[in-house]
């Protein structure tokens, strides 16, 4: 479980940072025709940096799936929504409504429950090994 968390924390942070960079660049361009949007977006290193961070995040996510449960990794990664809201409010100075902060609270409690369920699962597995050893 420790190894999973060690891999998922940088995955979550680089995903959130990637989104901040993408959003920064797209806001810089503002409203232009969709045909000119992509070529213009690609001109800036900010967009490439954002994309690179998203790729790093995906690789770490896939790596965690090579050993951890999908039903643990998916809700754990939802912490990225919380980090995204915090980053948007802090780095992009977006105004975050009370409803959104309530959502942040719900996700955080949900992730704590999922973390606890994973710890209990690990304990149960260890007890099982001990019991089969005694037999």
């Amino acid at each position, binding site marked *: 479980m420790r190894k999973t968390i060690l891999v998922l924390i940088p995955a979550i942070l680089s995903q959130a940072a990637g989104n901040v960079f993408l959003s920064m660049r797209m806001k810089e361009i503002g409203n232009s025709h969709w045909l000119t949007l992509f070529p213009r977006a690609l001109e800036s290193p900010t967009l490439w940096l954002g994309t690179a961070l998203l790729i790093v995040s995906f690789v770490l996510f896939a790596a965690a799936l090579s050993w951890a*449960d999908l039903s643990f990794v998916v809700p754990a990664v939802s912490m990225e929504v919380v980090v995204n809201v915090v980053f948007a409010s802090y780095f992009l100075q977006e105004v975050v409504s009370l409803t959104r902060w309530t959502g942040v609270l719900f996700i955080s409690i949900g992730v704590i429950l999922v973390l*606890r369920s994973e710890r209990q699962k690990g304990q149960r597995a260890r007890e099982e090994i001990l019991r089969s050893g005694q037999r």
Partner: protein
Amino acid sequence: MKTAVLIALIVLADSAGDVFLTRGMKQVGEIRTLNPRLLLSIGRRVISNKSFLSGIFFMAITFFSFLVVLSWADLSLVFPAKSLVYVTSTLGAKWALKETISSQRWGGIFLVCLGVALISLP
């Protein structure tokens, strides 16, 4: 109606993507090394794994149907609806990957789903 069908497609394709990705990575096996040369050969095995590639295929379907539905529907409707993915992916993990999911974990997942929906409300 068109919107509902596309949202259902997005949710199902996203979960299928998660399940196939997990199956592919489990077939490749636990990554236990940080040695660059070994990591490179693991990477090569990952991108030639059929389940992993199916996962990427489903993720592409998710992404493009998301873009399509956004061309007429509001993000504030589509995004909360998309949070159902947390539940469907967990069902996929239970049925297709045979993971055991405790009631505590289910409770956490429902809270996450609700929280994501709340955040995406306008």
